[in-house]
């Protein structure tokens, strides 16, 4: 491997050996830097998810436009997601979302992961959806949500609001939110919320109604510009 072919002449970092020729250089030789992932055929995806062919097509076009290599890595995912929340910092929440979508834990979300997740969220039964939401909150995937996990999630959601809010964001807003959440959800008061408590409480509190009403069922029937293609909910 050749060494770097351009030095940093704008400062004297190179002279002090602070410029690492191995990692900081412009590679002259070509490495196969493009990882290309091809998804399964449309028929298979159609069987495994609840989308029609047309919807799959639209989904894939949007996906491929943002990620031509066929997979999203976490950085891209955060970039895409942050475009929707210009005022706040959505990177933590995007990280949690990424973990929830990346079911096989290989550090990247392929089109199949993406479509499976969306299929559950948009077309699944109430139980499926609540299950998915539970999975999102359960950060270490151990089957129960502790207060700390909930606090992390809540902070990340509040981070998305940014600084300029009305009323002014207090520091313990997330914590209070978590307290009230636990009050409602944790029925046996053992400090954690299990999946059954979660589903039951949500059903009681009509959360599922909102999920049905707010989340789109018939997506992507319009042509959308590139940057809103991914979550054009209808």
């Amino acid at each position, binding site marked *: 491997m050749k060494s770097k072919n*351009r*030095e*940093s*002449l*704008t*400062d*004297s*970092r190179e*002279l*002090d*050996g*602070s410029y690492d020729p191995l990692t900081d250089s*412009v590679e002259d030789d070509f490495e*196969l830097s*493009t990882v*290309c992932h*091809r*998804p399964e*055929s*449309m028929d298979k995806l159609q069987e495994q998810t609840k989308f029609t062919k047309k919807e*799959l*097509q639209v989904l894939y*076009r949007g996906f*491929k*436009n943002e990620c*031509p290599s*066929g997979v999203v890595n976490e950085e891209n995912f955060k970039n895409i997601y942050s475009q*929707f*929340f*210009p*005022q706040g910092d959505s990177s933590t929440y995007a990280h949690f979302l990424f973990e929830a979508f990346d079911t096989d834990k290989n550090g990247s979300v392929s089109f199949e992961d993406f479509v499976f997740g969306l299929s559950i969220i948009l077309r699944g039964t109430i139980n499926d959806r609540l299950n998915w939401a539970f999975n999102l909150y359960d950060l270490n995937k151990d089957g129960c949500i502790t207060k700390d996990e909930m606090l992390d999630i809540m902070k990340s*959601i*509040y981070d*998305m*609001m*940014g600084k*300029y*809010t*009305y*009323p*002014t964001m207090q520091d313990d*807003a997330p914590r*209070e*939110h978590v*307290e*009230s*959440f636990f009050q*409602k*959800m944790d029925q046996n008061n053992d400090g954690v919320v299990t999946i059954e408590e979660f589903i039951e409480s949500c059903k009681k*509190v*009509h*959360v599922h109604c*909102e*999920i049905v*009403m*707010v989340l789109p069922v018939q997506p992507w029937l319009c042509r*959308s510009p590139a940057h*809103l293609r991914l979550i054009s*909910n*209808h």
Partner: protein
Amino acid sequence: MAAGVAAWLPFARAAAIGWMPVANLPMPVAPTEKNKRQDELIILNVSGRRFQTWRNTLDRYPDTLLGSSEKEFFYNEETKEYFFDRDPDVFRSVLNFYRTGKLHYPRYECISSYDEELAFFGIVPEIIGDCCYEEYKDRKRENAERLMDDQEDNKDAKLPNMTFRETMWRAFENPHTSTMALVFYYVTGFFIAVSVITNVVETVPCGSALNMKEVPCGERYTVAFFCMDTACVMIFTVEYLMRLFAAPSRYRFMRSVMSIIDVVAILPYYIGLVMTDNEDVSGAFVTLRVFRVFRIFKFSRHSQGLRILGYTLKSCASELGFLLFSLTMAIIIFATVMFYAEKGSSSSKFTSIPASFWYTIVTMTTLGYGDMVPKTIAGKIFGSICSLSGVLVIALPVPVIVSNFSRIYHQNQRADKRRAQKKARLARIRISKTGSSNAFLHSKRNGLFNEALELTQLPYKMNVSDQCSTEEEQRLSKSTSLLESQHHHLLTCLEKTTNHEFVDEQYYQQSYLEAGLENYPTRSPSLSSQEGVTSTCCSRRSKKHHSPLPNSSEPAHMQPLTHVHHQGLQELSTIHIQPLSTSRSSLNLRMEEPAPLNCQGSQITTAIISIPTPPVTTPEGDAHLPAGPAHQNVVKVSAL
């Protein structure tokens, strides 16, 4: 087998007829083509331009988009063609690759857009043909350098939680990060200059009045110069040790150029301290003092020009080597010739061939000191040939070095320019970001949001505005695109979840200040009759933009704004008055209060007052919309 060659296979098989008569063994059976599909034409519609090719052509490369089943995702049933919303010009190159097996890079194309298209179609760029490969690599390298420049600037951003050592290293490497670093930078620069000047002045003869002998200043003011030297060396030593301490990889630092220069600069002093005033050793000691001049190289941390020069010389090592080699050859040749030519003449200075070297060098570089001149005719002839060829030999490699220097220098100029423009670029990015958030706030304020909601067919009905706002619907359907409204819906869901609203910076500053001022809790819930209070609020809201509504049917919508007081003590009583415009409303409340204000002809002013509530009245946890029992919050609406 290359794609182009495959087309000739039938010919080669037919030509095998020549072997049949002379074959001894029977020929094998020809493979039958199972399920020979009639080759069909595929239409590829790329942004309107239709390309047609055979299916087999595309199947040649099954690990690309067009060659695999991935293209089925782009199949359009109605028009029976594959539609790609990409650049048709670049697609030409892509399709030619399938046809000819060679990928060409069009020179006029931007390298990053070309790379993107290749990535989209799943083609690895390594297979670019030789004819275009160099150009491609050059452009790619330029682009990468540009990106690296941008990243370098980001590197300077201060990372949180840096250890003291890391902070120090960053301060050393980039003096602009903190004032201390800048001070240090200038102090070391000053001391380098002082040290170099001291060394120079030391040798200047200072006239002494008493004795006629001129002594250099160094010997006259020995103590003073010694103190100066000590001070400089102390500073340099401290600096070196600090750098050594802060370096992330000490081993690498110690091997680097600058550290060697540092060591060489301060070592003579210490050696001088250690060595005694020995007669035979002091000669060597004097020689060691020569190394003190290396201190001037320490300036290369301070000067970009020096670094460019050094880098140029390093990168032109081969040209310099060639120059040196050809010069040496010429010197030897001419020296030999001159020696033998001048051998005959008496009292000639050309005593040996090495002695003639001096003459040759001085002549070839057109210096001509004149201390050695040829006297014989032959010597003069060869001497003139020598000086003519000297000019040529030196003039040849020099332009290469010059052009290298020029290229590197311009590169750095460009990098500096880009850095200067970085501010403008960041401002552009910031503007585009705030543009989208401002759009949301703007639409919120003007109440276009809830009308825009009508455009989306949400399952639950808005029975309030149905009857009234048909005209406005039409008006608004033009102004807010569907996507914008969906984006705004998303942002509003977030607002509902956290029970805070997005506001712009101005309003935030305002309310922040007012939150400090207002400490008294308000008791009376209805202020409908208190004009006085109204007026104070109006002034606060005066900055808000009120969009005038048409006089005809005006839907008045409730404007509940839920405020959550987390700290029961400090309540912020807010009164929003929007005499003219509608504003965003929370969806659930509209649902739950179906008997509200309907559209009436007159202008309606609504006042919303928030009642101080006990803390922890946040709406239910993670749902997108606050569910039913949010009534503890604070909404009271009264129509004036």
